[in-house]
């Protein structure tokens, strides 16, 4: 184990190298670009065992990943914002084909107008594609989650693609110290990919031909079961990582000071890291509040959220908006509680398009709720 100080994107590239990825197919987009630049450097120096396909679009990046994964290759891509949106069709394809492709998505707002800063609307728009979705809050977590994502996606009971999200610039371009295990230790944790199905000339199958209405629901149900399986396997993998490397980022939720509290704050990504600082500040003032950082949006940690709500009311801050409704996390949390527990849930939206959200802003939002002055759902940056 050694400590490296580097940006989130370079750390992501390091994880890809150490996971012994066979094929990378990617297209540059701000703020993801330095991932593919670093991978290209590895290739040039002979430090990357796999092949890097410089495709001509993100749609082709995901299509190439599907082709490579379908012959048994461990496959990775990285993108952001509009690039992720261009992939949309193929994201569904990869998930329905049950290919364990791993992607780093550097969260960035969507235009117009052009905005290159952090916002989760890109990945939130891909919730229904069947991909497992992680949200990271530190460079260490980016490294660990990318390695873990291969193990999770390739698990025989999962066989799904995994998207590892983290905030543009806030993490992608910020240098932080990261503990990197030795290659042998990674190899031991992440053995070679086991193949469930592949294009094999000695066992010629036709993948993806016409499927009739009687059979189609079965493949959808199988995906749903795989997500349910992933729920437990994410926990196992988090614990195994902790045992091997002494690092723990939580499971589907990262719980921070959630015992004996009246309120639990929920958020995702770098906002989750900032929320820790806010919780510490509020606790100094005697507020009984903890944090549940949502690491995994799909499969959704429904059971865990219900447990939290049995003992406390919930405050949700979304860095995304499902226009015409509300923040996605807010909706999902309320839906999880329906008919299970009668807790109050308060929601805010903050930080869209990279608008800075400080721990003071977060404390302000929470204190309003705790002081009985919630005043209704709002986009904090505009109305707060």
């Amino acid at each position, binding site marked *: 184990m050694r400590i490296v100080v580097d940006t989130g994107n370079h750390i992501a590239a390091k994880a890809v190298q150490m996971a012994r990825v*066979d094929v990378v197919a990617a297209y540059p987009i701000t703020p993801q670009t330095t991932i593919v630049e670093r991978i290209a450097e590895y290739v040039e120096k002979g430090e990357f065992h796999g092949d890097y396909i410089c495709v001509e679009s993100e749609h082709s990046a995901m*299509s190439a990943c*599907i*082709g*490579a994964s379908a012959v048994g290759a461990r496959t990775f891509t990285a993108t952001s914002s509009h690039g992720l949106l261009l992939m949309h069709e193929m994201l569904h394809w990869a998930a329905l084909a049950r290919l364990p492709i791993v992607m780093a998505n550097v969260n960035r707002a969507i235009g117009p107008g052009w905005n290159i800063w952090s916002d989760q609307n890109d990945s939130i728009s891909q919730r229904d594609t069947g991909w497992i979705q992680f949200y990271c809050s530190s460079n260490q977590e980016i490294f660990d989650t990318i390695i873990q994502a291969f193990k999770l996606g390739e698990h025989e009971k999962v066989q799904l693609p995994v998207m590892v999200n983290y905030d543009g610039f806030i993490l992608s371009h910020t240098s932080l110290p990261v503990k990197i295990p030795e290659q042998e230790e990674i190899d031991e944790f992440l053995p070679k990919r086991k193949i469930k199905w592949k294009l094999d*000339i000695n066992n010629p199958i*036709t993948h993806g031909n*016409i499927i009739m209405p009687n059979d189609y629901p079965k493949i959808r149900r199988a995906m749903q079961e795989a997500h349910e399986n992933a729920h437990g396997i994410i926990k196992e993998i988090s614990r195994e990582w902790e045992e091997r490397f002494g690092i723990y980022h939580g499971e589907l939720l990262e719980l921070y000071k959630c015992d004996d509290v009246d309120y639990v704050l929920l958020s995702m990504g770098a906002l989750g890291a900032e929320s820790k600082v806010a919780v510490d500040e509020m606790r100094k003032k005697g507020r009984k509040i903890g944090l549940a950082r949502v690491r995994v949006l799909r499969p959704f940690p429904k059971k865990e959220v219900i447990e939290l709500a049995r003992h406390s009311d919930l405050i949700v801050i979304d860095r995304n908006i499902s226009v015409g409704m509300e923040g996605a996390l807010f909706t999902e949390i309320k839906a999880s509680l329906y008919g299970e527990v009668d807790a109050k849930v308060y929601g805010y939206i903050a930080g869209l398009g990279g608008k800075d959200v400080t721990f003071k802003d977060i404390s302000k939002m929470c204190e309003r709720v705790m002081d009985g002055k919630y005043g209704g759902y709002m986009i904090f940056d505009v109305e707060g």
Partner: protein
Amino acid sequence: MAIKDLPKEEYVLPGSAACPGCPATIALRTVLKALGKRTILVIPAWWTAVIQSWYPHTSFKVPILNIAFEAAAAAASGVSSGLKVLGEKDINVVVWAGDGGTYDIGIQALSGALERNTDFIYICYNNQIYSNTGIQRSGATPYAAWTTTTVGGKREFNKDMGAIVMAHRIPYVATACISYPEDLYKKVMKAKEIRGPKYIEILTPCPPGWRFSMDKTVEVGRLAVETGAWPLYEYENGKMSFNGFSKLILEGKVKRKPIEEWLKMQGRFRNLFKPKRDEERIRRIEEFIERMWEDFRSKV
């Protein structure tokens, strides 16, 4: 080589959902005989996606990856790259796409795959229409042809896809026609031996789409070649050469048959002859073909 000398092994099996006499299965049967067992097909959304039979059955004896309409060439890049890294050698990675998936929606992915030197064979099955969705115009539909989206006849000429592909300076480009299976077989065999991107385009007359009786498929294809509407050529090492009847046309050893003979066989060009002869549009077609051949002569 005669048809009877083609390999006996069949890779298109009974149980296909194609119409009897479908030129797609005729072409694919010939192509797969040339490619053999060590082949992976990548098939975008088009007619061959439909005729493979229904899940969990298949009528093909080589592995197939079905993929979205515009994505075939990119997926093939991934297949080719994956096989290379995993050390699986001498497998033909083949895209089998229609003209819509090649000329139009898939052209970006195709161009990308050609430019980055993907080791694969891209085969465009050109029936000059979107046939999977019925009969709609594509970038390959010829001028004046009726389709359900060009009811009065198409107002534009087709693209020169061969020239677009050759502009990528890839090692091998060829055109073929369903009516000359031995020629098609030879070209696929040649492509198989070359590393890097190879492109073969096959003209395949479509009886319902072109509005002719299904016993005339081969004849309509032959007339396309003999009237010069469809050239048979190869492009290797930066040079074009012509085959069969097209070679004779190019060298001026035979005169092209009048284009009207080909047009009149097909109901899709009926607008040109009924209720009265459309001299202007027939002249434009004739000029278009003559210019194409002049252009070829300047290149060879």
